[in-house]
């Protein structure tokens, strides 16, 4: 049941009417929310519900036990159990086959043949999201940053909250639990906010991302003999496809949250307007980057503080390698993570030098310098996307070679068509984002008068009606 499906519209319609009917009764609303979330998740495959429930029960109990435990050692042991339990689930369902296959490959290199042990299992939807969410809950209690949740129903709602369950954002208990436990006031203003976010989210997904997929996929599914220009165009397209796909999902999730009286934190803040890698990670998938920052990078850099700058860079490399691995059990994702770790480390080294380059005083030159940095950073990010999207490292390598050594505009391969399509599917998005950037406000559009907003909604809806891809394509981040 994806957001852009008829089933979801019917499901949401029925759920929301019931939800409104019990407005003010927070317990009943939470029970309804939990049932709806389990129905939503179970609609993909009811067997996965047991994992969701296991993760919920594990952290609910561990959270309570950590809080009540006497000594530091005991608290650590319980936290260790919680971490082990969550990582075990993740390890078995997401990473086991990867490790097993690679171990087999390694052993066969040393002349130890044999069949790898592989599980015939499907990756449960959203497993990386909810395990990380529950892990952060236990860690926060261990750190004394929050108290455990007494009511199991409330905690189960936090874990299974369906708007964000399968593709994030990764919510923190500190932010969500107060909202879940207190009565929610449904206001018209929030309803409108929700509608605004959902229109924009569907536009990003159905018009931008799914159309750009038709530019990206043929290039990445072809087997060699790449043309550099096509590779570059498809990379640009993928950069906007993955943004449209994931930011679209996040917007819809936020919009649904608003309808129900929740504030889900912003997950994307104009990431392609970043002027350096550090800025990019402050704007891209913010719920994940802050998770890694808080629970991995900070402890590591603290532990390695004796090594000075080297320790920080080592922490960055470890953090981003694992961040890549979080995205999938594949060497391409690991390489993507390593690449970003290296970019951030490199930026850290160069930062003093870059800071020394003063900004031009002339306004035009200053803007040109700003745009130049943005474009450069965007290309660095695009290079990362190549590893992310490629089916194998060999494919990524041959595509890079094509950009470097086979960068020719050849007649008959439809470059003009691809270029115009890319422009068509991204122009409105970029226009809106430039406005948001200039006003330094993601809600810039919503602050215009109703006639202007109506024109904006009309444009989005007409694009969806005339050009949207209505094939209910799954969201890219479902696979993570």
């Amino acid at each position, binding site marked *: 049941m994806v957001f852009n499906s*008829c089933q979801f519209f019917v499901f949401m319609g029925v759920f929301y009417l019931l939800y*409104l009917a019990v407005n003010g009764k927070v317990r009943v609303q939470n029970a309804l929310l939990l049932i709806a979330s389990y129905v939503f998740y179970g609609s993909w495959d009811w067997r996965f519900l047991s994992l969701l429930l296991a993760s919920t029960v594990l952290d609910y109990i561990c959270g309570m036990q950590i809080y009540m435990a006497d000594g530091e050692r005991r608290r650590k042991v319980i936290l260790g159990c919680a971490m082990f339990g969550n990582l075990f689930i993740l390890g078995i369902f997401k990473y086991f086959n990867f490790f097993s296959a690679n171990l087999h490959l390694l052993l066969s290199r040393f002349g130890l043949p044999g069949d790898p042990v592989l599980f015939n299992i499907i990756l449960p939807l959203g497993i990386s999201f909810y395990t990380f969410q529950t892990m952060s809950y236990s860690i926060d209690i261990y750190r004394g940053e929050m108290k455990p949740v007494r009511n199991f129903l409330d905690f189960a709602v936090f874990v299974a909250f369906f708007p964000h369950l399968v593709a994030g954002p990764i919510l923190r208990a500190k932010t969500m639990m107060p909202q879940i436990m207190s009565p929610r006031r449904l206001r018209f203003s929030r309803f409108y906010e929700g509608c605004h976010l959902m229109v924009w989210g569907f536009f990003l997904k159905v018009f931008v991302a799914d159309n750009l997929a038709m530019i990206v996929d043929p290039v990445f599914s*072809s087997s060699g003999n790449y043309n550099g220009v096509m590779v570059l165009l498809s990379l640009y397209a993928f950069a906007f496809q993955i943004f449209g796909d994931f930011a679209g999902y996040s917007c819809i999730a936020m919009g649904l949250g608003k309808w129900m009286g929740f504030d889900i934190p912003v997950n994307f803040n104009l990431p392609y307007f970043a002027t350096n890698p550090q800025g990019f990670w402050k704007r891209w998938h913010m719920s994940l980057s802050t998770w890694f920052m808080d629970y991995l990078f900070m402890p590591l850099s603290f532990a390695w503080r004796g090594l000075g700058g080297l320790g920080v860079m080592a922490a960055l490399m470890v953090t981003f390698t694992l961040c890549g691995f979080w995205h999938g059990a594949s060497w391409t994702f690991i390489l993507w993570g390593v690449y970003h770790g290296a970019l951030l480390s490199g930026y850290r080294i160069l930062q003093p030098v870059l800071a020394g380059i003063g900004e031009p005083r002339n306004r035009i030159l200053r803007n040109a310098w700003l745009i130049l940095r943005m474009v450069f950073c965007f290309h660095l990010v695009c290079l990362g996307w190549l590893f992310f999207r490629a089916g194998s490292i060999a494919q990524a390598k041959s595509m890079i070679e094509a950009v470097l050594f086979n960068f020719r505009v050849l007649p008959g391969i439809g470059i003009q068509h691809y270029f115009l399509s890319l422009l068509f599917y991204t122009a409105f998005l970029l226009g809106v984002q430039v406005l948001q950037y200039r006003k330094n406000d993601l809600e810039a559009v919503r602050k215009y008068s109703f006639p202007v907003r109506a024109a904006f909604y009309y444009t989005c809806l007409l694009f969806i*009606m005339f050009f*949207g891809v209505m094939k209910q394509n799954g969201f890219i981040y479902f696979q993570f």
Partner: protein
Amino acid sequence: MVSSIFSSKSAAHRERVRGLTVGLIARAAVFLPLVILLVLVNYIVDPAAIFTSDDTMRDIASRLLRNENVAILSDHNDRLLQKFYIEGLTERNEVVVFGSSRSHQIGERLFPGRTFHNNSVMASTLGDYIGLLELYREKGLLPRTVVLGVDPWIFNEHNHVETWRTLDIYTYNFFSFVGLYAGSPASSLLNDINTRVFKIYKYSQLLSISYFQSALQRLRSLARDDHKGSLLRVRYYPTGRTDLDADVELSDGSMLASRSSRMRENDEILRNVKAAFILGHFARQAFSRRDPKLTHEFEVFVKYLLREKIQVVIWLAPYHPYAYDILSASDKYSVINEVENYVRDFADGNGIPVIGSYGPKACGMTESDFSDAIHLKRESVNKMFASDLGGAGSGTARLG
């Protein structure tokens, strides 16, 4: 409802809520033109002809019965067309074809001297074959030979064609007749349910964006000159021409693809085949195993035909080489190999000849024989049947 939901205790607040509710309705009304546009285009253009009356299909059927060819400009309820066709028959067809669009290219030329009709329907299910046979049986005009286009998906429990449930009642009638599923709900009840489901489906299409996009496509194709400048309401017309840019249903029931699809270059075809995978056309319905219930129904059906001394010929239409390589190599689709093995074993056990194979190499087909990922060109179908009929078989069984 809304105001009661957002209610509060004070009168002033109630007044405010009322004002906000009016505001909500006014804002929603601003978007009414979009909804009206959607509904009007979907209803008037109606690309799948779901809002047209049954008379359209009745008229096409009567034209086919009068040996006319008919150019059809839109999707249509071809199950209903076949029903009217069979109901209008006065003489027995010696050879009939039951299958999907993959069997639609089989024409009467392949069976010289014998009366023939191709009853294939789009995206057929096993239920369609059974329903069609039941129509012939109830009419008392059972054929002598049935060419059965067996597509792998007819064994897929998730394969439903929600759009057209026209033949369901005949399928259930057949099951009652052969004593299958005794004690199951009456066919009339099932038919009633199906009719209601179809009605819901039908009217939901008024608000469907994908239906709207199909309507736009149809408007674009109608703007071309081949259709005598006809717009909107003309969905079919009798024709003697075979070079139209529209699918032509020939009087023998076989389908002549539109000129543009016949003229496609191999490169373009291959691109489309790849795109079909990319867009997930092959993964719309989960198909991980051959359903035992459908397998049983298939066996009951075929054994009934054999009991009635009807010659059965199984036709396994091949897939485009690119598509087949992916299908057979992928865990996700490789069930098609299992289906083929099962069908061959079953045919061997019952003395049924098999023509073709899902694997193109096994029957000597190359990329140039295909018009897309799953459809052979008409001349290639002729070539395959001729080779089997003529005894120069490609490793497949021969017609008796």
